[in-house]
């Protein structure tokens, strides 16, 4: 059996700057059951995101938002949006590593 990953349980994803110093990712689940399962599973936590992005857990904010069946993850940007050395001015692709987190 192949390992299920976060990508397998999402219907939509959005990634964007929240101001020039923060990038945030919204991961949308298809239904209440998946949302609550993912919330309880502990796959997307400040600790797991921090480990993936090379951050301290205190730098990561995770909010589970039931009205949109979504989890929001916010992390500081490496450099302010558009500064020399930036690779992603609007923060549009920075969510991608989250998709590969295994569910189990």
């Amino acid at each position: 059996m192949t390992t299920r990953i976060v990508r397998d349980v999402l219907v939509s994803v959005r990634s964007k700057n929240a101001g020039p110093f923060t990038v945030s990712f919204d991961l949308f689940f298809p239904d209440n059951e998946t949302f609550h399962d993912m919330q309880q599973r502990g796959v997307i936590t400040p600790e797991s995101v921090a480990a993936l992005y090379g951050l301290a857990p205190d730098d990561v904010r995770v909010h589970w938002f039931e009205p949109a069946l979504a989890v929001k993850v916010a992390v500081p940007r490496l450099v302010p949006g558009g500064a020399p050395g930036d690779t992603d001015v609007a923060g549009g692709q920075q969510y991608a590593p989250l998709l590969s987190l295994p569910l189990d």
Partner: protein
Amino acid sequence: MADSNSLSFLCIGSLGTGFLESSLERGLALDPDFIGADAGSVDGGPNALAGVAPGWPDAAYRRDLDLLMRGAARKGIPLLIGSSATSGRDWGVDWFAGMARDIGSTIGRKLKVAKIYSELSADYVADKLRAGRLHPLYPAPHYDEDVIRRSVRIVGVMGAEQFQAALDLGADVVLGGRATDTGIFAAIPLARGFDPGLAWHAGKIAECGSSAAEPRRRLDVLHIAMERDSFVVQPLADDIRCTPFSVASLQLHEVADPFTMVEPGWTTDLRNVRYDAVSDRAVRVSGATSVRTPYTVKLEGVERAGFQRMFMFGIRDETFLKNIDGWMAFIDGDITTRCEELLGPGGRDLVQVHMRVYGRDGVMGPREPIKQFEGHEAFFVVDVTGPDPQTTETATSVIWYAFMHAKSPGWRGGATVAWPFSKAVFDNGEVFQFNAHHVIDVDDPMEPFRIELEEVGQ
């Protein structure tokens, strides 16, 4: 109007990116009380605020502004625009005012246009710092008087009160400098005595126009109807609809915390909001509460980061691809030597060099968790940022030449890389970076802002 129990408005999410004229007409047929349009964004980086270029060309803004001004004038309702020309800098307000003058002269009636300027002087901001009335937000870069003095431009971000002040002067069209997206839409509902929690929450849903609807097609006009205990959101185009999920998702938009909304002078608690379908295309929203807070104004600032050139090339030879870092280190010695020959001792350190290897970690940079490279080709984008155009040009030519006929540890000689255009090196000109994520305490909401009124048309 103060005792009215309903009020409605049309929401344009991104002035300059268009909307359907038919949707605007449908919205106007519903007799809205005002039209609000957000023109701002920091997503494109510091260039707009620095003054390199506005977000969109003249023709794009002019088309949208023309339709909105005509529609608002025909219905006799105010048009509120926030963050003119993307950054809200004074030049953008004046640019929009010029268009409003042109458009106004063809409408056939007199219109009062209020311009709200939001640029702040370095002295004003430095005084706030010294008085202990400047505070960091999270995450904030280091900020001191030197940073303030070297800023190319600083704007204050207005909320609802500044739009209200312009309307109190009798403005038909308000061209705001930098504004919170929500304040544009909350101003009139707040002034008409609607529940502040609902007014701010409606502003949040309004700020991206039809992004609150699904499926996502083009940005279009959104309609919001305020009532005393809730508000109703619906799109105006037939092929999109609002659902509780689509509207709720806007609560997540461009914020780090979806449950608390901090605006100038107000904080809104969104923990207990409800989104209920009222039809297959409209959603009723309720439950937000707002409280008054001491009035603070967020700063946005930019400083010069230098002068930049860039070049790009591809690599197909696996001899290089197997050892990209070793290869780049190998030629770095040549770069240092040649920079010193041309720029003097320490010449290499006069410039910052950033190398992005697409195919490996060009998108994520150091945050790429997949460390090994696999693939049969890679694309390199290298930029060089120096303190002045001459140093940058010299250093970039050296670095480009070192890559171009690349020596390789895997070959006795070297190889030439593949670049796609005859023009090999591109001049990015002056480049900038955001340098402030702070708020200032103000005694009065208008303290950092200036309003000028002018009459257009006849």
